[in-house]
C-alpha cells in the first residue's frame, strides 16, 4: 500500500504534471517542425515533456521521502483579497477610481477579523484621494476619476502661485 510521505511533493508533482499535459495538449495544433527548422511547437512541446517528467519524479519522491505537510490554507484572507481586486477591476469603469478603491479596501479588510472597520474606511477614503493626486495629477496616468480635474486645477493653481512667489 502506497503511503504519501510528503504531501507537498504530491501537490507539486500533480501540479507539474497538469501543466505539462496542458502544454502538450494545446501544443499539438502548433507546427512542430524539426531540429534544423524549429516550428512554433518545438520548444514548448519539449519544455512541457520535461516539466511533466519532473512532476513524475516529484510524485515518486512523495511516496519515498519524508517531507513537511502542506500548511493549512486559510481561505478567508485569500478570498477577500481576490474578491476586492476583481470588484475593483469590474467596477472601475462604472463607478470610477475613488469609490472603486474604497470598495477594494473595504472588501480586502474583511480578510482580517481584528480590524477597526470605521478607521479603515476613513483611511481608505484618504488614500483614494492621495492615489488620485499621485497617479493622475502628478504622474499623468489616464484613469476615470471624479476628483482628478479639480485636483489638477488646484495643483496647477498652487504651482503657479508658488513659482510667482519665487520669481518676485
Amino acid at each position, binding site marked *: 500500500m502506497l503511503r504519501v510521505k510528503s504531501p507537498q511533493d504530491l*501537490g507539486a508533482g500533480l501540479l507539474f504534471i497538469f501543466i505539462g499535459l496542458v502544454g502538450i495538449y494545446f501544443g499539438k495544433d502548433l507546427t512542430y517542425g524539426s531540429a534544423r527548422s524549429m516550428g512554433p511547437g518545438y520548444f514548448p512541446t519539449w519544455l512541457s515533456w520535461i516539466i511533466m517528467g519532473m512532476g513524475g519524479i516529484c510524485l515518486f519522491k512523495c511516496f519515498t521521502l519524508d517531507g513537511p505537510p502542506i500548511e493549512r490554507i*486559510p481561505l478567508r*484572507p485569500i478570498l*477577500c483579497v481576490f474578491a476586492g*481586486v476583481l470588484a475593483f477591476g469590474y467596477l472601475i469603469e462604472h463607478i470610477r477610481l475613488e469609490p472603486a478603491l474604497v470598495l477594494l479596501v473595504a472588501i480586502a479588510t474583511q*480578510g482580517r477579523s481584528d480590524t477597526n472597520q470605521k478607521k479603515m474606511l476613513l483611511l481608505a477614503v484618504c488614500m483614494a484621494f492621495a492615489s488620485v493626486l499621485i497617479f493622475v495629477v502628478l504622474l499623468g*496616468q489616464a484613469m476615470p476619476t471624479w476628483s482628478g480635474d479639480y485636483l489638477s486645477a488646484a495643483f496647477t493653481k498652487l504651482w503657479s502661485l508658488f513659482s510667482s512667489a519665487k520669481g518676485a
Partner: protein
Amino acid sequence: MDMNMFQNLLTGFVAAGTLQNVGFAMIGCLVGTLIGVLPGIGPIPTLAMLLPITFGLDPLTSLIMMAGIYYGAQYGGSTTSILVNMPGESSSVVTCIDGYQMARRGRAGAALAVAALGSFFAGCVGTVFIAGFGPPLASFAQKFNSPDYFSLMVLGLVTAVILAQGSVLKAITVILIGLLFGLVGTDVNSGATRYTFGISTLWDGIDFLPLVIGMFGLVEIIRNLEGDTIEREPIPTKMKDLWPTRAEFKEAIPAALRGTALGSLLGILPGGGAVLASFAAYTVEKKVVRNPTFAFGKGAIQGVAGPEAANNSAAQTSFIPLLTLGLPSNPIMAIMMGAMMIQGIQPGSAVMTSNPELFWGLVASMWIGNLMLVIINLPLIGMWVKLLQVPYSLLYPAIIMFCCIGVYSSNSEPSQLLLMVIFAAFGYILMRFGCEPAPMVLGFILGPLMEENLRRSMVLSRGDPMIFLQRPISATLLALTACVVALIVLPSFRATREEAFKE
C-alpha cells in the same frame, strides 16, 4: 583605458547629476530603506508594484530609482535585524544573529554604524567593480553567438537554482514553467498564436505586470493577512552611542573588507546576489576569525560587518551580468530587465556602446545613492525605528491599492486584474507546495530569448546539437553548468546549502 574610464565616469556623473535623476535616486533610496526596515515587504514586490510608475519616466531615471530601492533595502534591512531580531530583508537574516546580541549588550549604535559604514564602503567598491569589469565583459560578450548565448542562459538558470530555497528539483521545474509561460502569445517567427486559448489579451503574451504584481505583491499581502500580529519592540538606541570604539573598528574593518570582496565576486556570478552573498560572508567570517572578542552568536561585530558589506556590494555588482550580457542573475534583476524592455531597451552588450549615458549614469547614481543612504540611515535612524511601530493593518490597504492601480493603469484593461488574481493564486499554491515562486520570473523573461537562440543555433548547425560543445565559449559555459549541477547534487554541498538556509 584608465583615461577612458575617467571620461566615462564623467559622462555618468553628468547624466546622473541632473536634478531629476538625483531626486529620483533619493526617492529610490528612501523607499528602499523604508521597505528594508519594514519586515512585511521586500524588494521584489516593491519593484513589481512601482514598475508602472516608471513608465512615465525616461529609462535612466527609472533605472536609477529602481536600483536605489534594491540597494537601499540592503541598508534598511540591517536596522530591523539589529534592533528587533527580525530580518527586515532576507539578505539581512544572518545580521540578526550577532547584530541583535550586540544591541542587547548596549552596542546597538555601534552595530548600526558598522553596518551602514561597511555597506557604504562596499557600495563604493561595487561601483568601481562595475566600472572596471563592465566594459571588458561587454566587449567580450560581443564575440558571443547564438549557441553561446543559449549556453549562458542555461548556466544562469541552473545557478539561480542554488539561490532558491528548498528543493532543487522543484526550483528547476518552476524555472521551466516560467520559460513556458514566457512563450505564450504570438510567435515572432511564424506568427502562430500559442497557448492563448482564444483570449485576445494574451495575443501579445502574458503581460509582465499582472504576473509579477500578482505573484509577489498580492501573495505578500495574503501571507501577511493570515499571520498573527507580531509585536515588534525595538531596543531603544541613543544617538550618542552610534560611534564604534577603536577596538570595535579594529575588528570590523577587516571583516568588512572580506565581505566586500566576497560580495563583489558573488554578485557577478549568475545566480548570485545579495542574499547568497550575506550567507556566504557569515560562513567565511566564522571560519576565518580565530579569537573574536565576543563569540559568534554572542554579538561578534564581524558577524555584522562582513555580511552587511557583502550584501550591499553584491547588490551593486549583480547589475554587471544584466548590463553587459543581458542576463538577469536573480529575480530582482529579471524585474529590472523587464523594466528596460518595457522602455524599449534590450539589455546586453550593446547598451554600453549605443547608450553610454544609461550605463555610466546608472553606475554614477549608485555612488551618489550610497552616499545618500549613509546620511539617510545614520543620523535619521530614530525616524526609521519609529516606523517600525506602524502596524501592518495600516500598510496593506496602501499596498493593495498600489497593486490594483499599477496593473490597471498600464493599459486600462480590467481583464489584467483577473490575470493578476490568477497569478496570485498560482504563486500562492506554488508556495504552499514548497516551491519558491521567485525563479519563475527569470524563466519568464528568458523564455523567448532562449527559444530564439536555440532556433538560430540549430539553423547554424543544421539541427546538430553538438554545436553547443564545438564552440569554445559555449562549451566552457556548459562545462561550468555541469560543475554547478555536480555541486548541487553532491551530498556534502547539499548539506551546507540546507544549513545556510535554515539559519
